[in-house]
């Protein structure tokens, strides 16, 4: 067993990688899309901020394995349904991001906000044209953490039998083979690094105004 195992299983590893990628990206994007308006509400209505951020923090502390198991009971899905993983990761993403969005939006200086308002920008126009762009670096920094975390949480879903790279771990364990485990770890790592770098690039591209060298 060795390279021929990898060669023989290349197709399957590829499939698992794609499944892993899909299960990482989908909830991250959905979480982001939900966190943007909710984060805006937390920013706009300061009294709601502690509640929204508090609930977010609470959700984030839930152990992922417990969520995978409890979620089917709550939403009535099958325990092996990948939808459970998607929902759980969406919740995590949202929980982490909502605070960054609210804080990032709040990082616009009062003078800039006032100037925009006085120029006749509606609060929606200020959100889209001023606050969101200025919040981008903060949001992107959180996105990096979230994506890498999600890559590793997804692999945990193998325990409840949803196929992705984590399946290589469970298989390796049950067959007492180290190679599938190593392959799983390495591919997970590469995936995490690539996603992380993509976010870094995207962030740089979206924020040309930031100083190039940040001390």
């Amino acid at each position: 067993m060795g390279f021929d195992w990898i060669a023989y299983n290349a197709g399957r590893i590829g499939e698992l990688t794609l499944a892993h990628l899909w299960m990482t990206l989908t909830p991250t994007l959905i979480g982001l899309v939900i966190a943007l308006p909710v984060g805006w509400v937390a920013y706009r209505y300061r009294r709601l901020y502690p509640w929204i951020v508090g609930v977010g923090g609470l959700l984030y502390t839930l152990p992922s394995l417990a969520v995978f198991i409890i979620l089917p009971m709550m939403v009535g899905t099958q325990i092996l349904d990948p939808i459970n993983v998607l929902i759980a990761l969406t919740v995590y993403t949202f929980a982490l991001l909502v605070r960054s969005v609210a804080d990032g939006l709040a990082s616009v200086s009062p003078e800039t906000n006032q100037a925009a308002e006085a120029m006749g920008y509606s609060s929606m126009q200020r959100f889209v044209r001023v606050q969101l762009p200025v919040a981008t670096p903060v949001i992107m920094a959180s996105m990096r953490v979230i994506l890498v975390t999600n890559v590793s949480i997804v692999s945990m879903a193998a325990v409840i039998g949803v196929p992705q790279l984590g399946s290589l771990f469970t298989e390796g364990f049950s067959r007492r083979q180290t190679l599938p485990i190593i392959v799983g770890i390495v591919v997970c790592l590469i995936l995490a690094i690539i996603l992380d770098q993509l976010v870094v690039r995207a962030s740089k591209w979206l924020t040309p105004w930031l100083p190039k060298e940040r001390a």
Partner: protein
Amino acid sequence: MIVFDNVSKQYPDGTMGVDGLSFTADEGQITVLVGPSGCGKTTSLRMINRLLEPTGGSILVGDADVMSQNVVALRRQIGYVIQNSGLFPHRTVLGNVASLPIMLGMSRKDARARAHELLETVGLDASYAKRYPWQLSGGQQQRVGVARALATDPPYMLMDEPFSAVDPITRAQLQQEFLRIQSEVGKTIVMVTHDIDEALTLGDRIVMLRTGGHLAQNATPRELLRNPADEFVANFVGRARGYGALGFTSDVQLDIQPARSVRIGEQTANDDEWLVAVDDESRPLGWLRTDDEGIAQHADVEHATIITRADGTLRDIMDAALSSPNGRGILVHEDGTLRGVITLEEVTRAIRVSKGL
């Protein structure tokens, strides 16, 4: 025209920001709101474009009460400039100036062309157009702020301490350029400052407030200096009443004497006399005493001398005489060419005449 009619603003916590304020800011003029910290200047200003709403009285912009106008339409007629510029940090200088016109549907190309023109108007070199706000000095940021406020050519401008966050030299420069711009654009401007000298320099009319948001005096700068309404106004105007009061053009006829001048590089008679050194276009450079060889040289010019216009204020003319090494001030025509010299005695005579002494 902007009219305050018995306007009051009580904040939710009970503080009276402004109390029964009435004044008129005339078309095409600079009206300056001045007074000590906390007297309600910013509050007054922000009620004009409805960043705040009055709790009593009414404010007219044009002919209509601001509260009856569509708030966005109202704001689009009013440029707004604040102390720390409030530029968009994620937009270039050009982007900041062009952002509102683009949002309102002007083509990118036209908006950029207009922004370039405005940067030139406010005296910012085209090489700054691609920079971001953090790459500019405070004074440069204020220039961009003014350009951005002018971008849609609004008839009104509100300015809250626009020049107070920069050093005195830059401030004086910005003030002079601002007056030049205003002479070109002729906006109806309401400006806030706590600096009486700035108010006297820039204001066509000064509305002085006292603590509690009450009107203390509404007058032209000259009236304010000559006839302060009460002790509070007199104290606030302070030093400016003396020396500062000379800062207006006077109608006193001055006895200006012809000056002996010499061009740089020319040979002069070696009679140890003070001469006015001039350049090739007859513009004076300063006083000069010729050296042993009798050649007028740049290095010998007393550059500390202030040179001012013969039709300027008595204050400037006195500065010219006082800064001269020989008690005579150098005066120039409008085009900068040598007009003549004036003695310190003649300046003090003119001051006495202007004060009716």
